[in-house]
């Protein structure tokens, strides 16, 4: 646990980077994890093929919020192709802490939101494409 809540994780949680609204956003997306109540919305300003700027807002557990904060730092200035190449494993590695199975969804919510924003799609290729939620 002490492994999981390392100082930099808690720092990102308490002092999230790139938090807030983004003026002139070109792409944005929100997603949530109903089970935990974690929520993240992310806005990108894409300039040519690059992520010129990024902001996020969210609430939820330390893992979900730190993951989002770290991710925004990473993608700023990257090309869209580079952003689209980011996968689960990359996120988990980047977090640098052991994530138990029950918390994987928390760690990956930021990626899910980013991909929604980057692709402009509600779901993105190769991830959860079979998600078949229907309202009843």
């Amino acid at each position, binding site marked *: *646990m002490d492994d999981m809540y390392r100082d930099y994780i*808690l720092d990102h949680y308490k002092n999230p980077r790139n938090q807030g609204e983004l003026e002139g956003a070109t792409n944005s997306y929100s997603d949530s994890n*109903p*089970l*935990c*109540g974690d929520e993240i919305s992310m806005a990108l300003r894409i300039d040519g093929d690059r992520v010129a700027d990024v902001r996020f807002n969210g609430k*939820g557990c*330390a893992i979900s919020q730190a993951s989002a904060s770290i991710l925004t730092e990473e993608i700023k200035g990257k090309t869209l192709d580079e952003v689209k190449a980011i996968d689960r494993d990359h996120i988990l590695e980047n977090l640098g802490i052991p994530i138990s199975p029950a*918390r994987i969804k928390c760690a990956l919510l930021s990626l899910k939101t980013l991909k929604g924003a980057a692709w402009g799609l509600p779901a993105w290729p190769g991830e959860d494409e079979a998600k078949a939620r229907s309202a009843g």
Partner: protein
Amino acid sequence: MAVTVKTGTEVRSPLDVAKIRADFPILSRAVNGKPVVYLDNAATSQKPRQVIGAMRAVFEEYNANIHRGVYEFSEQTTAAFEGARAKVARFIGAHDDREVIFVRNATEGVNLVAYTWGRENIRSGDRIISTVLEHHSDFVPWQQLAKDVGAQIVMIDVDDDGRLRREQLSAEIKKGAKLLAITHTSNGLGTVNPVKEIVAEARAAGATVLVDAAQAVPHTPVDVTDLDCDFLVFSGHKMLAPPGSGGVWGRIGLLERMRPFLFGGDMISRVTVEKTEWNELPWKFEAGTSSYVDAIGLGAAVDYLEAVGVANIHDHELSLVAYLLPRLSEIPGVEVYGPKTLDDRVGVVSFNIEGIHPHDVATIFDREGVCVRAGHHCNQLLMTRLGVAATTRASFYLYNTTDECDALLGAIDRAKKVFKV
């Protein structure tokens, strides 16, 4: 926070907990190097060796399919299965064993009633009264039924302590309703509703009443004859029995008139291409091979609970609440949800620690061996009402101790240190 239970309030437990704990093999296990402190009993309970042994005895000594076999093993298994039904019937105060239908869990129980009695009786424009305390399993089936037939769901609110707004409920009952589907005991907050008086009120006004007793039957004496409701559901896995066991109790007159739910083997008496005649109660509602080993486990669980005494278990749980609640509420930054007194509640304590999300709380607790639930507890309507996304919930059972409360308090301390709050 106005917790009226003060530190030093002593409520003595009537149980010999050390003796009880010795019956539960899992309680001597360690988690992350710490003795396990299992405080997620509202989700599911642990099982005593008597239940594990009863199930194993079926498999090793006399297993056969029930009802149909003309040989000794089958007769023995049938007797154990129907014997379990008789135990359950007695345990919940049913007059007649045929009123107890074995189902997988409380959820299937509610759905059984919704698909049969519900679809036969609830029509467009009818009112169904529900409450924000309901578990999703006693809400979504009615919501979907209402949607399908054009009925209306009327929601009853709670006050800030999580107690049902009685006046609102009475007013809505007076306006008339086809069905009141109400939880006996809230799994999110531990609130116990005054079900008996509510049932009387609703039935006098012509409503049929289903009681969700999933959190009641394991923790407080429940008597369907005394409650005088129409249907009651519960889950075995929350009362020392295996998952896969559970029951619907219904008035025999209602059950007789209802069409069956699932169709197939064992629930029929005669099948021709043109039509099928149903078996007698309760088998009319038990299609295919029952989870008979789980049901036999439930019978053994009832034996265990009766030997200990459910009223004693209730008192024991309250003694733990009396110990924990004041200590918990003294911790800066801790907010407790639900009843702040010992009246009309069971051993469920929901709380949050400011600045730490419940999932992080639960993860840190886990490293201390403390198992609690973090989330919406299948109570999204209640969470919305309380204005929180999730809570941390500790829930007690007969084997929990004040030492375990201390472990919980210690884990809170640890979490606050880690998060520097």
